């Protein structure tokens, strides 16, 4: 774990004024440094084993399943409870109280007494008291359409139509994946010295990965129950093309704002990777690889379905734009400064999404050079005051590093349009319109820009009276500014600092915040359901657990699963009779 400082920055990092704009952050794609990719890589190189030890499901697929995860130094168990769920209870929101499956990853053995405690509490999720050996707590709902179609096909001895997974790439959608001490589970501090899970969100991603395995085995079980003689197991290519969905909303935003050092570290890691990659001389080999990656990405995006009009337009624009990138690569041979030339060209010819896609692919080209950065995406989060800093230096720091925040206008309705709050209903984060909806007096302090601007105004007035004062003297006059000032001092020393947006502004798009975090997780298939609610897919295309221990498959090959494409199943294997029902 390291903390980023300007002193350790490569000299060709992109400026924060470019990278930290919300619109650009909201245009990023998953990269090889994303958490699902780095977890898979670790599982591949260390040959983790995931084996089913209990599979006690009834004819409807309800019951208990347990998976044992063996790493080089430890063992864990993922305990999954599957139950019947009335349709009226199936909601992806945090305010839901029941789910199709609930599950948890626990450290060590899953002995009877622990299982008993888990059976009584894991299905309750937030309402339960979870055991301190539980590392991750989660739940998921079925994609009903995929489940019934897939089970029917397999029961008939046919493979499902791959296009169904292109439309919706999963059988289950997680609706929350809790770690770090929530509801009594283990604190992340307990994992900081555990090499299996000391990277951000690694344990959570493992839980999601095991759910994928369960969804495949539950599906095969249901097909076999329906038709014991005729049922076919899901084709390995389709298993690989099956991911796990996630449905998420505004809950992503408080995390991004409340963990600024971590977010800056993620961005800094990605930007360092890009800075290193772009200064490499392109060879014939990397030129060809880049072209192939872009060609795969364009197909992947063509195969991405969403009902959201804006996202459809963005995808179409990106597809067109990436096609131009491929043309550009075809007419531009490999040379020393190819990547710089491409980035410069894309800056004036391509959409933000395409620019960020190019960056993602440049990082993909140099695994030996850049994969070490995946161990540097965590940090010790601690914001401390520098009380002896001169107050005028604090003002200079704001002027220099936070000028973006000073555009906020106190008296402008547009700048103060939204307010963020938590509802009494399970603390669900929500957005309200100031002056129209009630609750603004209880708003959560997520709009960092306006806070910095207000602090700056008070600082200017204070300096007129006390030009030589220290920051602590400013704070004794304005104690309510303590949190803002230490945030400014802490983030002001980092290369990227804060997300540059006024989260109160009428034009602020919450979806950009969601995508920012999800891209670092490694999400694909962004499918917005509203301006503040999105479904995505994780692990689509990832190796299967059985493949992790297959020594005939090279780690490099197994690791190459980003931007997955719809598989082609041999004739006779795909159930064409059900085609058309899903798209």
């Amino acid at each position, binding site marked *: 774990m390291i903390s980023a400082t300007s002193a350790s920055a490569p000299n060709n990092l992109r400026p924060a004024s470019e990278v930290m704009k919300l619109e650009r952050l909201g245009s990023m794609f998953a990269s090889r440094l994303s958490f699902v990719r780095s977890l898979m890589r670790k599982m591949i190189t260390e040959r983790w084993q995931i084996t089913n030890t209990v599979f006690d499901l009834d004819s409807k697929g309800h019951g208990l399943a347990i998976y044992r995860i063996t790493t080089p130094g430890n063992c864990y168990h993922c305990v999954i409870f599957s139950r019947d769920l009335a349709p009226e209870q199936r909601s992806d929101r945090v305010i839901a109280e029941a789910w199709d499956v609930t599950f948890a990853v626990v450290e060590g053995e899953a002995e009877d007494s622990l299982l008993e405690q888990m059976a009584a509490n894991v299905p309750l999720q937030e309402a339960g008291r979870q055991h301190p050996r539980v590392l991750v707590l989660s739940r998921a709902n079925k994609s009903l359409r995929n489940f019934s179609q897939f089970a029917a096909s397999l029961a008939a001895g046919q493979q499902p139509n791959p296009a169904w997974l292109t439309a919706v790439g999963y059988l289950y959608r997680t609706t929350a994946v809790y770690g770090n001490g929530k509801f*009594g589970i283990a604190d992340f501090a307990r994992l900081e010295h555990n090499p299996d899970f000391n990277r951000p969100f690694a344990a959570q991603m493992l839980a999601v990965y095991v759910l994928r395995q369960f969804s495949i085995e539950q599906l095969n079980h249901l097909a076999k129950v329906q038709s014991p003689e005729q049922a076919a197991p899901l084709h390995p290519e389709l298993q690989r093309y099956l991911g796990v969905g996630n449905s998420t909303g505004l809950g992503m935003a408080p995390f991004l704002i409340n963990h600024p050092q971590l977010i800056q570290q993620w961005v800094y890691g990605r930007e360092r990777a890009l800075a290193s990659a772009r200064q490499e001389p392109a060879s014939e080999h990397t030129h060809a690889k880049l072209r192939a990656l872009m060609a795969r990405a364009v197909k992947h995006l063509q195969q991405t379905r969403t009902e959201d009009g804006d996202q459809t337009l963005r995808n179409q624009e990106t597809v067109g734009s990436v096609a131009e990138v491929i043309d550009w690569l075809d007419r531009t041979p490999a040379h020393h400064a190819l990547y710089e030339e491409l980035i410069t060209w894309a800056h004036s010819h391509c959409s933000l999404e395409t620019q960020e896609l190019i960056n993602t692919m440049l990082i993909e080209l140099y695994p030996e050079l850049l994969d070490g950065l995946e161990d540097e995406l965590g940090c010790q989060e601690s914001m401390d005051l520098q009380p002896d800093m001169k107050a005028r230096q604090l003002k200079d720091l704001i002027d220099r590093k936070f000028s973006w925040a000073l555009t906020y206008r106190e008296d402008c309705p547009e700048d103060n349009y939204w307010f963020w709050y938590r509802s*009494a209903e399970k603390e669900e984060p929500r957005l309200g319109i100031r002056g129209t909806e009630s609750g603004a007096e209880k708003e959560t302090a997520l709009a960092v820009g306006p806070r910095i601007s207000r602090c700056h105004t008070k600082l200017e007035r204070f300096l007129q009276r006390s030009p030589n004062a220290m920051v602590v003297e400013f704070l004794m006059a304005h104690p309510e500014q303590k949190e803002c000032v230490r945030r400014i001092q802490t983030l002001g020393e980092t290369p990227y600092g804060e997300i540059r947006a006024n989260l109160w502004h009428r034009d602020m798009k919450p979806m950009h915040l969601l995508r920012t975090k999800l891209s670092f997780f490694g999400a694909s298939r962004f499918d917005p*359901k509203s301006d503040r609610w999105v479904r995505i897919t994780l692990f689509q295309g990832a190796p299967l657990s059985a493949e992790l221990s297959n020594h005939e498959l090279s780690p490099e090959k197994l690791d190459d699963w980003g931007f997955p494409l719809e598989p082609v199943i041999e004739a006779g294997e795909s159930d064409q009779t059900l085609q058309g029902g899903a798209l």
Partner: protein
Amino acid sequence: MKVSFNELQGLSRKAFSGIGFDDGDANDAADVVAWMEAHGLGGITALQKGLDFLLNEDKSKAPELIYQDADLCVVDAHNKTILGHASLAIELGYAKCRARGLSVTKIRHCHNRMLIVGYLSRIASRNMSVTAFWRNAHEPLTEILVSFKSGDAEPEICMYSLPSTPDDTEPNDGITLIMVNHVNLLPDLKPDAPLNDLLRQDRDAMASWHERSLVEGIEVDTALWERLKTLATKMLVEASDDSRQGAGAGTNDND
């Protein structure tokens, strides 16, 4: 009931916000309570003892700086809890020490003094040697000495009774802080372990308590936990049909 460190910290923060603390103070107070409890220093008990007081104190009046020179500052906390703005008095001492090499800070008329240890841990981690000293007024008269070496997160703590009651006309409701940034103060606390030593807590004991807290969780009185939850709900907005739209999601996902 058992809770995690993060849970205790998170709910305390929300409860302090509900009580009326500013964001910075709510964060600091929650960090202090959770850190103290996780290190075996009774953070929860101190909070439980001081909660009624916290609810009724006037949050609008900040501690007042009544004297300062280059090396010394005296702050009147106006009979408020140390969890509030008192952190700024500590930061003032830190700033003076950085400038002069040694500083003395006196915080007068404050409550929940033991909780100051949690904030001093952060100060010591910022490469500052810190010694805190205060007396408890009850019988027997006791002194508490807390000493952090520069860079250490855990202190040595010693509480001892005084062999005789001195003639003391001043109330024992203050704290004295001595900070030094180039040498360590009191590296060995009462090495001879006097017979009237009432409590002695060393760094190793605190570190192992912390380790155990992470593995086993932290025991919290259920009634206190419910009380903190109730305080935390003050920052939540009542739900309505309109507000349910504010999450931007539907209510049913049967697709």
